[in-house]
């Protein structure tokens, strides 16, 4: 598995001095990337470094402003994704993009369904092929169900299946693991390695360094839209990479502060919604960070959505400091001091086409208004407070949130909810898609908020995060709470055991 970056063999994919600007926002100034066949190439960089933009240029979705783009040594110029597909490039985008009304199978094969002589789609062949793909990825998804309502994880898996089935020479994966848990990640990696060994070139983008170092052969670092370095993975360390990414030293340690744990703030009693979760009871105290762990699909998000009042539930009670939280009313829940940072920031967390300022003040718009009227100056001022504390990178407060990078979007969601000054902060996958620097900061922030007496309920699929930040860990499996583990007893093993116990396919 020798890496030959400067061999005379043309690279599978090469970009040189590529730049791209969106109006006043410059996403890329001079990006380089050289990916060889037979290798998995990591692309890392802070949020907003321009990774996804680079991917979209390769995919033919954006057109570069300047620079060279070579495919197997030949200069290419794609004007649509169809062309890049035809040239043997498959892309898994950062945000899953499925057709909600169509079946899982159709989603995988759209536009290239197997047909018989008369052009009629061969549904049976298509389904068999889909099941084969799922088998390879070791997942269980009904190929006939519509994509509507699938969890993000399942959507991501379908994206992966789709990309694999393209049988492309170059496979680019933009944070494919952000929504996945251990088992699925392992499976994905096994598939990725086998694709590499078949002689393909893969690009892997992730903010998780353990994954990067265990999977990849080469690593390219980007910063502020610029190429920084490319090295064989064996010749660099995590610390070095992180330093190059952010331009200084960062400790990835989670600085857990001890906080005085006080009275019960939230207590959930026997919450049940048939088919989704059953008999969920737990409490969260002020100053306490409770981690909610489990495999993807365990129903954690559904529970907190029900607690917050977005989703219905059939039985049970939610009590906030002695006051019952009414069903199905997020605004009542907010009034009682709840805040929910949802898992799907693009659909649930943000109004993408609205401005940073409008989004950041969305949850406090009532308290901002005087005599029922809202002044946009007040709005902007309020938005600036938390945006600046979280270091949101944006051109101006009236920029559309949708144009921010994924990580910065997540920061806006955080800003929006922290602005409500909640007594209980529920946070679903707080650091999904966030770079290391910001991640450490978010953890510090959570710690600090807890220190000030806020109660925090955190869902996370990243075990180190749960173990590092939580005072107490709740574990869910298949819609039920299966364990409650104190900070001192919580280990990777104990949590995983509770999350997977009795599942046949547990790794």
């Amino acid at each position, binding site marked *: 598995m020798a890496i030959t970056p400067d061999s005379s063999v043309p690279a599978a994919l090469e970009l040189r001095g590529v730049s791209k600007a969106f109006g006043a926002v*410059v996403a890329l100034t001079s990006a380089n990337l050289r990916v060889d066949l037979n290798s998995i190439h990591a692309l890392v960089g802070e949020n907003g470094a321009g990774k996804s933009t680079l991917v979209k240029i390769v995919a033919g979705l954006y057109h570069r402003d300047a620079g060279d783009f070579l495919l197997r040594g030949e200069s290419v110029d794609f004007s649509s994704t169809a062309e890049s597909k035809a040239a043997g490039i498959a892309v898994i985008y950062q945000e899953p993009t499925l057709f909600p009304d169509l079946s899982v199978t159709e989603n995988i094969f759209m536009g290239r369904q197997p047909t018989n002589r008369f052009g009629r789609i061969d549904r049976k062949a298509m389904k068999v092929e889909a099941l084969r793909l799922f088998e390879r990825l070791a997942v269980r998804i009904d190929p006939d169900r519509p994509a509507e309502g699938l969890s993000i994880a399942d959507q991501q898996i379908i994206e992966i299946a789709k990309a694999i089935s393209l049988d492309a020479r170059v496979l680019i994966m933009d944070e494919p693991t952000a929504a996945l848990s251990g088992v699925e990640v392992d499976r994905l990696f096994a598939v990725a390695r086998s694709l590499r060994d078949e002689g393909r070139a893969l690009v892997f983008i992730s903010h998780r360094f353990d994954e990067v170092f265990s999977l990849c052969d080469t690593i390219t670092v980007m910063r502020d*839209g610029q190429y920084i370095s490319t090295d064989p993975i064996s010749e660099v360390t995590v610390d070095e990479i992180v330093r190059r990414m952010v331009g200084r030293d960062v400790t990835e340690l989670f600085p857990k502060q001890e906080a005085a744990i006080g009275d019960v703030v939230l207590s959930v009693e026997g919450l049940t919604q048939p088919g989704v979760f059953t008999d969920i009871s737990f409490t969260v105290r002020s100053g306490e960070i409770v981690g909610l762990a489990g495999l993807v699909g365990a129903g954690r998000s559904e529970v907190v959505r029900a607690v917050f009042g977005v989703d219905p539930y059939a039985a049970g009670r939610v009590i906030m400091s002695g006051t019952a939280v009414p069903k199905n009313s*997020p605004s009542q829940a907010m009034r009682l001091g709840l805040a929910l940072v*949802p898992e799907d920031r693009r659909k649930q967390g943000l109004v993408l086409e609205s401005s940073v300022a409008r989004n950041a003040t969305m949850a406090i718009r009532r308290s901002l*208004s005087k005599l029922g009227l809202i002044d946009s100056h007040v709005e902007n001022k309020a938005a600036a407070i938390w*945006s600046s504390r979280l270091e949101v990178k944006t051109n*101006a407060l009236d920029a559309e949130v949708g144009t921010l990078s994924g990580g910065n979007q997540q920061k806006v969601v955080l800003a929006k909810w*922290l602005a409500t000054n909640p007594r209980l902060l529920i946070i679903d996958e707080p650091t999904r898609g966030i770079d290391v620097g910001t991640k450490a900061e978010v953890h510090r922030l959570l710690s600090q908020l807890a220190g000030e007496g806020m109660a925090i309920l955190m869902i996370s699929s990243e075990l180190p995060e749960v173990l590092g930040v939580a005072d107490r860990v709740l574990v869910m499996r298949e819609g039920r709470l299966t364990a409650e583990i104190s900070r001192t007893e919580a280990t990777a093993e104990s949590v995983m055991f509770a999350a997977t116990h009795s599942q046949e396919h547990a790794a």
Partner: protein
Amino acid sequence: MSDTTTLTSPAAPAGQAPGRSYRNYGSSLFRRIFVTREMAVIALLAIVIIVASVSVKNFASPITFSYLLLDTTPILLIALPMTLVIITGEIDLSVASMMGLSSVTVGTLTQAGWPIEVAFVVALVVGVIGGALNGFLITVVGLPSLAVTIGTLALYRGLAVGLLGTTAVTDFPKFWTDIAKAKFAATGIPVVIVPFIILAVVFAVLLHFTSFGRGIFAIGLSSEAAAFSGVHVERTKFILFMLTGVVSAFAGIYYTLRFGSARGDNATGLELSVIAAVLLGGVSIFGGRGALHGVIAGVLLIGVLGSALRLANVSSDVINIITGALLVLSVVSTSFLAWARKRRQRRGGTKKTAVSATAG
């Protein structure tokens, strides 16, 4: 990131040195105010008025504008709540039928000897109920508004026609029919413009300067994200449909008095005029975008164009063609302008240096 220690809950004073400072707006004040869809419509309206005043005989007289306002008042009125409904991403096609039903309600009740003032109130209540029925089917039962209001379009019109049959009620107190046509002496400005202005102010404030209005825009852009932010998505829509119902009923009363005639087929087909005007005014049919000043200009533009062309002896069919073409052109031109702007930026883009928020 030396500032992270200043991260405290917002309860702390805002004055502490933040990590970054932000510009409030990405573009200049001039661009934000004048380079908008709404301003384009207003400019077009001004141009049409100027051109018509110079070139169309008899156009530049106060009487033109008093007729114009008398004629377009129902559309102006209904366009107000319709704008809000469309911004939430819904639509109400039943407004003209509701006008008819309200008109017939006033007619049958006065015919039956009720005092006309009571009949007005009942008609408004009918409007509220009709709007609430729309709202119920759309928000509680969860049906698409286009389908529901196609149904209620038929239902309300059917009730109106059913109630009055072949007759038209034409006996209304002169006091009220005079008010509907009254003008502020000399100026030629109709009195009905007063309730319109009041409503316009109310709706503009509601849409653009309240948290309710913020919710309306959020619902239109992403109702899921709005729900997660505590916006009462269903309640908001329900209220808007009720408002549309009651304003339509009010327009129906005005229509009845203006023409002194309550008939089942009053105002048939007006819904398309209202929607055309709202869209011309720059409201996105997909929801989330639009402003009331643009809508009012849109209504007036269609009205002024119509009266100028009629005065110039252009036949009603050609007026229809022009109205249709204008609607198409106006939306096509915005996307053409956006496309042209993008191209220009793409060409000049590489030379620009990175302009982003300055680090603190």
